[in-house]
């Protein structure tokens, strides 16, 4: 089993209303050193697949077709073998 962790964030050029609000909230708590706050999505997909190359291809396809919207978002992912559970 392989586990893919996908991180989707708004592109730098796109304003992030949630991030801005969270930044203001953190500042009101006294954190004054914040340059920027960005909110994103974190998707975990477990694949019944052994071949990392094939998994990478599949996950990339999923991101392009559905998980991320290329107009406003960018994505990164890592894939690793899932540790066996006892």
């Amino acid at each position, binding site marked *: 089993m392989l586990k893919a962790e996908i991180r989707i964030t*708004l592109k730098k*050029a*796109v*304003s*992030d*209303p*949630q991030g801005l*609000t969270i930044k203001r909230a953190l500042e009101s708590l006294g954190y004054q050193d914040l340059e920027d706050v960005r909110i994103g*999505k974190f998707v975990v997909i477990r694949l019944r697949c052994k071949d990392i190359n094939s998994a990478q291809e599949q996950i990339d396809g999923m991101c392009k077709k*559905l*998980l991320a*919207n290329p*107009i*406003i978002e960018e994505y990164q992912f890592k894939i690793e073998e899932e540790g066996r559970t006892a």
Partner: protein
Amino acid sequence: MKFGVVVFPGSNCDQDCYYVVSNVLRQQVRYIWHKDTELGGVDCIILPGGFSYGDYLRTGAVARFSPVMKSIIDFAQKGGLVIGICNGFQILLEAGLLPGAMLRNTNLHFICKYVYIKTYNHKTPFTCLCKNGQVLKIPIAHNEGNYYIDNLSLEELKRNNQIVFRYCSSDAEVSADFNPNGSLDNIAGIVNKKGNVLGMMPHPERSAEKILYSEDGLNIFKSIIKWLDKK
């Protein structure tokens, strides 16, 4: 004239659209279930507002893969009239039938109120009964209506006269003060290049009878009927 109102799981303005077309405008209308692949010979497709698939992932992101969408894309590519209202607009964006994308409203609120929009293109099938610059009072009800597109594509929209509506004041002033959601360039509605697909965030079906304090939404539906009549 025959209208088709598409129903996705989570659509909630489908009955309002159906009612306006059938009871207010006395036109033929049928529901089209999202799993249908036949559009049943309709002249105009309405993608209604709501929360298709619970707005999961992104608004409209899942609905665009419904079986019916393939037929709707074919229909639109052949010049058929398609109007997407609110979530319908979001679906059209995700499906690539219209350019751009929606972000959260800048104030992070779900905004439900009457707004004014100014008509910038009165030569589309959806606005042919409007005067140029006409101000319409139509309500919005959304959480993601903050329209975004990159600068180059925005210039292209302007060049092709694809921006149909902008948020404005009651006396037609277009400025940030009258932008409810942070939408780029106050954009409230756009058409595709060919002009046969319209997406708009305000709900014309909610302002189609006197009792609702505005009948301005009728301009949109009546324009469609007039346009189709001429054909």
